[in-house]
């Protein structure tokens, strides 16, 4: 794996990153770069598609926020051939979501160069606006400095989003080019790594000098992952306890108003239109009456838990745990917590990990006669 370091002046990571992105954009092969950027006159950070190297001054991939999972944006850019190559700067969960979308034929990998940065985590959207609204751009630098020096990441009483605290994938393994922060002396250096042949080709055209990965990096990453995993497992246990009966599940989703924001925010919910807003669930008026007749009382809207169960059935095999669903919920239902708990088990059942590799077949897209014998019940034959 080709590895290089680039110098950082006075710990100013953002300037270094902007320069690095600029150098990528200036390559003949790359026509545009998709990168998170502060929008003018606000402190909102959004993905921007940049073709002019001079327009990278607001770039801020380290801001602890991602108002949407940019995999969806990359999917839009690559759904059909564009005739040009785009570098996209993404968080690990965005890369993994994009890999899922490619497998679902919602995007193409051929014309993108995936640039991933070690992820420091993010706040919930609303929280971030509360904190950063007053602090402007320097909030990012104080955040990453704290994050990289291992300080507790609470700002004005706001903690990192639970999805990020439970994320065991802070390293963008699937990137073509990785920008490493953990276990790196970020006051002076950044790590650049080419992780795929495509990444290596680009790496060669950049003016970089080869070096070794810092020896302390694996241990730092390992301890971070261990901490996150511990949080995650605790979350799994609590969530399972809170939802282990239909009654509890009903309570869990009691506030759901069928706004479907979670599915709109979900990067892997790729349907053009969710089945729940189609005529399939456009029940006959007399049907409601019939249901009510049978039970004496029914809660309205009727299809809330059904909707969530269906979404889990459809997409839990592809869930990357980015937490945008919880972000999007107007009534603060911990959607991510449940979705991840279920996903963890469904993905385990298929020995699948969403976003891990473009090569792994999607679960349920291949029929293996001998799989899940205890579930499908056809294992009582010789498997010849």
């Amino acid at each position, binding site marked *: 794996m080709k590895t290089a370091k680039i110098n950082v002046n006075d710990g100013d990571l953002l300037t270094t990153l902007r320069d690095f992105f600029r150098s990528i954009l200036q390559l003949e092969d790359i026509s545009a770069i998709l990168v998170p950027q502060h929008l003018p006159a606000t402190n909102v950070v959004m993905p921007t598609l940049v073709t002019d190297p001079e327009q990278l001054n607001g770039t801020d991939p380290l801001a602890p926020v991602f108002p949407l999972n940019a995999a969806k944006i990359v999917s839009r850019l690559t759904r059909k051939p564009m005739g040009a190559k785009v570098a996209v700067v993404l968080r690990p969960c965005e890369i993994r979501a994009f890999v899922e979308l490619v497998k679902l034929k919602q995007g193409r990998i051929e014309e993108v160069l995936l640039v991933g940065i070690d992820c420091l985590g993010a706040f919930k959207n609303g929280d971030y606006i509360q904190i950063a609204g007053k602090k402007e751009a320097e909030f990012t630098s104080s955040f990453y400095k704290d994050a990289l020096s291992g300080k507790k990441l609470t700002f004005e009483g706001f903690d990192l989003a639970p999805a990020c605290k439970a994320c065991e994938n802070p390293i963008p393994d699937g990137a073509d080019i990785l920008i490493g922060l953990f276990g790196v002396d970020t006051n002076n250096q950044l790590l650049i790594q080419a992780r795929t042949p495509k990444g290596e080709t680009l790496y060669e055209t950049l003016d970089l000098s080869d070096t070794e990965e810092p020896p302390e990096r694996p241990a730092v990453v390992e301890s971070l992952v261990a901490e996150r995993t511990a949080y995650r497992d605790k979350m799994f246990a609590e969530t399972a306890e809170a939802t282990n009966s239909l009654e509890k599940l009903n309570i869990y989703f009691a506030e759901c108003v069928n706004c479907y924001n979670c599915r709109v925010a979900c990067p892997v919910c790729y*349907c053009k239109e969710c089945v729940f807003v189609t005529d399939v669930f456009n029940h006959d008026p007399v049907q409601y009456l019939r249901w009510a007749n*049978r039970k004496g009382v029914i809660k309205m809207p009727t299809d809330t838990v059904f909707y969530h169960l269906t979404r889990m059935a*459809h997409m839990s095999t592809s869930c990357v745990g980015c937490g945008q669903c919880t972000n999007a919920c107007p009534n603060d239902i911990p959607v991510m917590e449940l979705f991840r708990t279920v996903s963890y088990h469904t993905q385990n059942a298929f020995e699948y990990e969403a976003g891990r590799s473009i090569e792994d077949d999607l679960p349920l897209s291949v029929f293996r006669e001998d799989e899940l014998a205890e579930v499908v019940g056809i294992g*009582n034959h*010789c498997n010849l």
Partner: protein
Amino acid sequence: MKKKIGKALVVGAGISGIRAALDLAEFGYGVTLVDRSPHIGGVLSQLDYQFPTDRCGMCKMLPMVDRDTSSQYCLRKGLFHENIEIRLSTELVSVEGEPGNFQVSLRQAPNLVDPARCIGCGECVKVCPVEVLDSFNAGLSGRKAIYLPVPHAIPNAYIIDTNACSRCGECEAICPTGAIKLLEEVRKDFRILVVDDELIMRDSLKAWLEDEGFAVDMAASGPEALNHLSKQAYELMLADIKMPGMDGVELLQKAKEVFPDLSVVMMTAYATVETAVEAMKIGALDYLLKPFDPDTLIPMIIRTYQDLEASKEPPMEVGALVLCGGTSYFDPAEGKNTYGYGLYPNVVTSLEFERILSGTGPNQGRLVRLSDGKPLRKVAWLQCVGSRDIKIDADYCSSICCMHAIKEALVAKERAGGALEAAIFYMDMRTFGKSFQRYRDRAETEHDVRFEKGRVHSILYDENSGDLMVRHVDYSGTYREEIFDMVVLSVGQRPALGTTALAEMVEMPLNQWGFGQTEPFSLTRIHKEGIVLGGSFSGLKDISESVIQASAAALSASRAIHAGGGSLTPEPTPEAPLFDISQEPPKVMIAVCTCGDLLSKLLDTQRLVRNLKVDPAVDQVDFLEQTCTVTGWENLIERVEKHTPNRILIGSCLPDVYAKKIRELGRRVGLNPVLIEVVDLMLMARVSNLKSETLSADEISKINSDVLAILGTGLARLKWADPDPVSYEKILQQALVVGGGIAGMSSALAIADHGFQVDLIEQEEMLGGNLNWLQRTLDGNTTKSILDETLLKVEKHPLIRVHTHSRVRASHGQVGRFYTTVEAKEKDAFTLKHGVTILAAGGVEAVTTSYNYGTSEAIVTQKELEKKIHANTIDPSRLESIVMIQCVDSRQEPRNYCSRICCTTALKHALNFKEINPEINVYILYRDMMTYGFTESYYTKARKAGVIFIRYDLAEKPRVTPMDGSVRVTAVEPIIRQKVQIDADLVVLATGIVPRLPKDLAESYGATVDRDGFFEAAESKWRPVDSLKEGIFACGLAHSPRNITESIATAEAAAQRALRILSHERMPAGKVVAEVRHSLCSLCERCIEACPYGARRVDLELEKVLVSPAMCQGCGSCATVCPNSASTLAGFLDQQMFDVIDSALEGTA
């Protein structure tokens, strides 16, 4: 629409009979399918599992194109096809006439239970006092005289075993629907006059016959008899010959003058054949010899009765007959019975063991001994019981037992969770079919099935433990004993019962063992045109081969019908215009059959009507009596015509039997049949105790809720039913055959003979393939005759265009329309349009470098030897010693399959050498001699002729060393465990067959090849010549290794499968087909991956996923993988299913 007239009779409704019937029916002929047993499925109704999948899959034989003509569910349960009339318990009585125009008479055993009325409640069984052995479970369990012939049929009507029935009348009394009519009523109409001067004779005859339900009168003399005849009509007269005064012959004469239609059977105490023959000349039906006892007399009278009843029906006109009579099995109790079958309780036949494995068997599938309940832990299979045995005149191999035994061993092991030891004692493991060798290898290496070479000489039974000691001499000559819990005898096949009589009737020659004898190079044709054999009737075939042969038989039959002018006659069927109701809201009429007084007593009709009418779609609820009867049905039609609903829901029983009636009803009232639905109200009769005398109020209320729920589900389905008529796709009625060998030519001819254009592509300069060098077959037929004959027909045929020196460059399309670009030598490429494709690309002898091939001229292949013999470059009289080595590079990875022809080729050459020069030493080094079927006799012949057979193992292969002037072969002789050394003049290597089916050729048509490069069938057993993608078929060596005759059979089968499609100008889609709602589709293409039939593709320009309705089989996989129901299945819409589930829950709330 062209409607074929033309009809075929298929005798025998086993697997091959069903295949042949379906093939002919799909082509468009009417088919009458008869079986003498009361169920379809033949022996397969008793076999639950088939290798290599170790499960069933019979349903895969159902039509895939125009599939709504047939029911689409478990074929073991039943077959319903528009063009097939099934007559069970029926035998063929006589055949007259010419090919294309036969008159046949059938005899149907009287059915004492009306299947249309029997609801299968089983009350009759509870009261029946007679218990007999159940033949379905191979006699391993008991049943009553009234019983279900198979546990799984639909409709599963009870029948009465008339031989066992005591006619006590209990069942008739308890039957809730009045379905049972015991003999008496029917037979009372059949009056018999007994004429004898001896009172005791008259009296006993009268008593016996009246016991059988006949009406009997007596007369003591001829004049008295004539007096009776003048007063009363009689069907049958039994007349004694020797009577004082007017004797029997005179009476016969006189009676016949006045009543020419009277049937007379003579009786005589003296076996004077002359008198009897004389009597028969003047019109007696038969004669009986005195003294007689009721056991012989009664069946004879009943047969006469049945024949007379049958003859009242006019004979049936058919164009061709397909005889699929199946086989019977060797009874191991016959002869010396050294294995103690029938004496030792734990010695069973392979068929009995099949029932022991079955969930519907005597143990409900638990693997325990029937005798003492001991779990089976150690089981032995003994092969070749009743086969390959000259002493009992069975010098043939039954072909199927080896694989059958391995399968049973594997299923038993799997059932026992591995805790079962299985040993198979065999002589040669005949794993000659595609994939068989690998199946065997896996059984041995992965599942620890033990293969013991050697014949078991006897079994000892331990009365205390019930265990069995198998005593045998192993291959090294050591005597061994081993204890088993159970011993399974792999019994060989025998000609089917009644084969001789049938053979006489249709002038079918039999071979020396009594199996049907076919013409050279045909597995199906006998010398008499229009009468063909299918399946194992001509001997010894597994399912796959039976199915292939059945399709081939269907083809031969079809040719005869076609030649007789029975097809292509346009007969416009006026299709009544359907009412366009697409703009109307649903207006449902619900008709509830009250089933006599069964339901009317229980139903709370007011509550039902009230609940059903909550739904505004319900227009009318009617309660009718017995819609299964003609009156009931007419009554229903009357109501429909009165109320003019646009959807009809019928609540009755046995919905599957209504399929045909529904189509008729639809036509009559102008409704698309999808708008008529039948739900099974009797479903609950089978689960709840409807007949119980005292039902509580709660129980009655539950029954009413159930009825409401069942009707509700039907209503839900109907409301959402799409009234649009099905779509059609046009078919290019032309075929393309790739490969001009004997298989390709045969299939081309078969198709062209039915009036369709065929393009035949051959890459070589001339047609003929391997027959250009092959000279003759093992049974002495020269191949030149068949080659010349076929070439001439192909070249002269006006509908066949031959393209030699040509090859397929590319192809696209789907069933009904393919476009193939062909490139030819010295010619421009051209494109052919065709509706079906047959891949007959052939195969060649494999090349080898083993055994020092290529280093000496004295080491040749079997093909080279054949050529040398023909070219006279070899002189057997000057050779002293020849070694043939079998299985060169075969039956081991990577070419781990048997090529089938090498053993017989070796025998052919060995016998030829021995014939010319008896002094010559011929050694055949083999692993297992694959002389399956009747070729076994040549193996015997070769041994008698002095050919020396030496078995070798893969671990110790022979070694071949070229010497000066000879070749030295060393091998280990396993019997003496010694190295033998042979200095041979000639070493002949059997290298086997490799296919010549290029992967890209197959793939350009959407077909696939297996790991050995042969065509991959949609299903090796049930659809052996079809590709999974409809419209592509394969035959000949590209399909699998096989001899000429077998190759031609595959060619005919492939042609028949293709003709089913070509015979239609346009192809209707099924009712249940998938559709795409494009506005919702995200183009993720998961549905395309999920579609097993290749019916979907994405059109990148339109940005749409498209479905071919004709190829779609309505399996619903696409709708299942689609997350947002952009892919839907007509007839199974989400809304509809939600509604159905909701209604079904109605009763439980």
